[in-house]
């Protein structure tokens, strides 16, 4: 009963915290709400008229939604890069960062689920997928695996920080024996969510562009580059706009993670390019389309070369200690890397899988404004959720938010 009371008080307190703030905070939240409203409006049009309002067709049947979903799974998985050193290796450097990382994972997972639902033709019959009342085609369909791992990861990433914050809220220490097993599981789970998501594509013999053994490992490498890169940027913002203390040491350590992952990612990219272009087969056509265009169709060329340029530049910057240790340069490199991987692991990966089609037909895909509206709406939803979670967590960690009910 007491716990319930504390929980109620926590909810009330956090409601107060998230509805109060500086002018900039209100502008930020207002801006996000506005974008979300635009997204909802666009989605209502899509619900009404069907997916025909998107740029997707029978030839390219997955587009911007699934691209963003794929990328965000990687961002969510990256929270593990902070969890492991903090909880498992007891490296206290990361302690402040880890709650932020887990909050980011929660926001990213919610966005993932939102993108999947936005992509569904029949969201009203989604209960068909719920085990027990629907038919859950497990283990045959990789999509069911993905449902399990994503929701499991969401549960882990909500429950661990919640437990810690709930204890801190009452002014008590969180017990290792309670959250450590969960943290350990989530380390493996994070690798799992991204590998399973890669298998979603990798397992399709119909699409040679995806049907390659490197897809899963490359997903992991790019995820562990883009995710922590985003965490660095978020920490930088939090450091500058709140009293929450994050040491340079922490940021530099995460930068090290980003660097190694970006380097591995680049090596894998070279390996992939070598395979596709040294001895091109019929199956290299998608890669040709992506990098050089096929039969005059060239929509993705500017995108992929931008992505490659951004990736290489960022990786080079990160590789030099002098540059990486300069925080301004580091932030710049993180922005480049994040955008580069968003393009590469987003529509640079999904769209070419469908081009050329099973019989060589080249039909290009361009997202419509409505699709883009829904997409940025979901991104705004993620940012909104993350702001709320981070603000509550920071206030608890700073000691501003404490349970007073017992007095």
């Amino acid at each position: 009963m007491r716990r319930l009371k504390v929980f109620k008080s926590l909810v009330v307190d956090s409601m107060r915290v998230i509805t109060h703030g500086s002018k900039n905070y209100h502008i930020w939240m207002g801006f996000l709400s506005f974008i979300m409203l635009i997204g909802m409006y666009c989605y209502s049009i899509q619900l009404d008229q069907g997916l025909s309002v998107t740029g997707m067709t029978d030839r390219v049947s997955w587009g911007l939604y699934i691209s963003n979903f794929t990328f965000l799974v990687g961002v969510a998985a990256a929270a593990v890069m902070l969890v492991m050193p903090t909880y498992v290796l007891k490296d206290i450097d990361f302690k402040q960062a880890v709650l932020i990382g887990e909050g980011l994972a929660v926001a990213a997972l919610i966005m993932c689920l939102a993108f999947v639902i936005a992509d569904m033709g029949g969201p009203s019959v989604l209960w068909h997928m719920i085990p027990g009342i629907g038919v859950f085609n497990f283990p045959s369909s990789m999509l069911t695996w993905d449902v399990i791992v994503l929701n499991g990861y969401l549960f882990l990433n909500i429950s661990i920080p919640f437990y810690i914050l709930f204890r801190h809220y009452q002014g008590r220490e969180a017990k290792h024996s309670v959250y450590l097993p969960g943290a350990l599981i989530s380390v493996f789970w994070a690798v799992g969510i991204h590998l399973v998501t890669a298998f979603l594509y990798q397992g399709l013999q119909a699409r040679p562009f995806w049907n390659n053994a490197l897809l899963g490992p490359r997903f992991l490498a790019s995820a562990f580059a883009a995710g922590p890169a985003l965490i660095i940027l978020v920490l930088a913002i939090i450091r500058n706009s709140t009293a929450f203390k994050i040491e340079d040491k922490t940021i530099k350590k995460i930068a090290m993670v980003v660097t190694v992952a970006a380097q591995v990612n680049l090596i894998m990219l070279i390996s992939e390019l070598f395979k596709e272009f040294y001895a091109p087969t019929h199956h290299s056509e998608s890669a040709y389309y992506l990098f050089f265009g096929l039969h005059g169709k060239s929509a993705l060329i500017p995108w992929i070369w931008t992505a490659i340029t951004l990736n290489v530049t960022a990786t080079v910057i990160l590789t030099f200690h002098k540059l990486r240790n300069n925080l301004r340069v580091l932030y710049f490199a993180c922005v480049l890397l994040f955008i580069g991987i968003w393009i590469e692991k987003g529509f640079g990966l999904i769209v070419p899988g469908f081009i050329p089609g099973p019989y060589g037909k080249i039909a290009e895909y361009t997202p419509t404004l409505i699709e883009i509206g829904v997409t940025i709406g979901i991104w705004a939803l993620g940012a909104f959720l993350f702001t709320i979670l981070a603000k509550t967590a920071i206030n608890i960690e700073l000691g501003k938010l404490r349970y007073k009910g017992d007095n």
Partner: protein
Amino acid sequence: MSDKKWFSLNIGKEHKASSKCGCGNASGSCNSHDSGGNAGIGEERVKDGFEQVFEVKMDRRSAFRKLTASLMIGAGAVSTSCSMVAGDEAKEKAQIDWEEQFKGNYKLMTDDEKKATVDRLVRSYQLRTGKNIKMSSKDAQEGVLFGYAFNISKCQGYMDCVTACVKENNQDRNSQMEYIRIHEMKDGKGLDFGEADDNYYHEVPAEGHFYLGTQCFHCDNPPCVDVCPVQATWREDDGLVVVDYDWCVGCRYCMAACPYDGRRFNWSTPEVPEEEINKNQHYLGNRLRKKGVMEKCTFCVQRSRSGQNPACVEACPTGARIFGNLLDPNSTIRWVLENKKVFRLKEDLGTEPKFWYFMD
């Protein structure tokens, strides 16, 4: 007898196949049986793993049924108590909509449930339009396995098959959905799909070209079925790969998994002019679809299960299309497979299509 989930057709070889094994035991536990080559036509009925799946589903289904029943009681109570003014027809319509929204997967339904949903759909159409349709829920027959053969030498690209298919199967006229694609290929280039045109608008047969049609190949090891997260698509016992339009959630994973471009999606609400609707329907076939669900060629299940040829076969003016029962040794399709040099597309993918090509 083997780990293979599907069986390979060994037309005309089944006698040899059974004597292949050195142990002389045709079906026992000898490990030296060649799993690929040994599965003859007669063994089609062996459902390995399939039955277990059904076993598991039984309690799910009963749980589901209980849930539906309680929901229906609630709905009935709500609709009778709230709608004083609504007429009986409106109430009935609401009741049907409700039950349709919360019905189960067709694949797992009992015969009674199948009949019930078909009756509801027929009644619903009657209430909405005042017209009657005929809808069947006929199951696969014993000893039938449908197969298809396409004569590349004969096809002239008239596309009568495409037109007949669209009419027969009530496809969306707005988006010009077509299950069949006719690829116009250049002579001397072999089967080069990259050079082919599947969207031509000129007089046929065009000089220096030949024609090849593709559609759903009704694979015996269909990748689309494995990937569906809700088992809304499956392989029937007579080999047809079908979709339960009401169970499909519209994720389009099957579309990505199909190597043959065999699947179509309803990107918006399909529209068929009332006077053009084919009223002879099958639940798994040409009944009217809604937006956001997959559909595909079913070898015209409404026709093929009542002994007719699919519409494309009947419409073909050149006789390039041959359809029949692979298990019937006297069928034309068997004659083609035994006497012509047949081949299938992308055989290396292990999908085992039941759609063969041949030349005169």
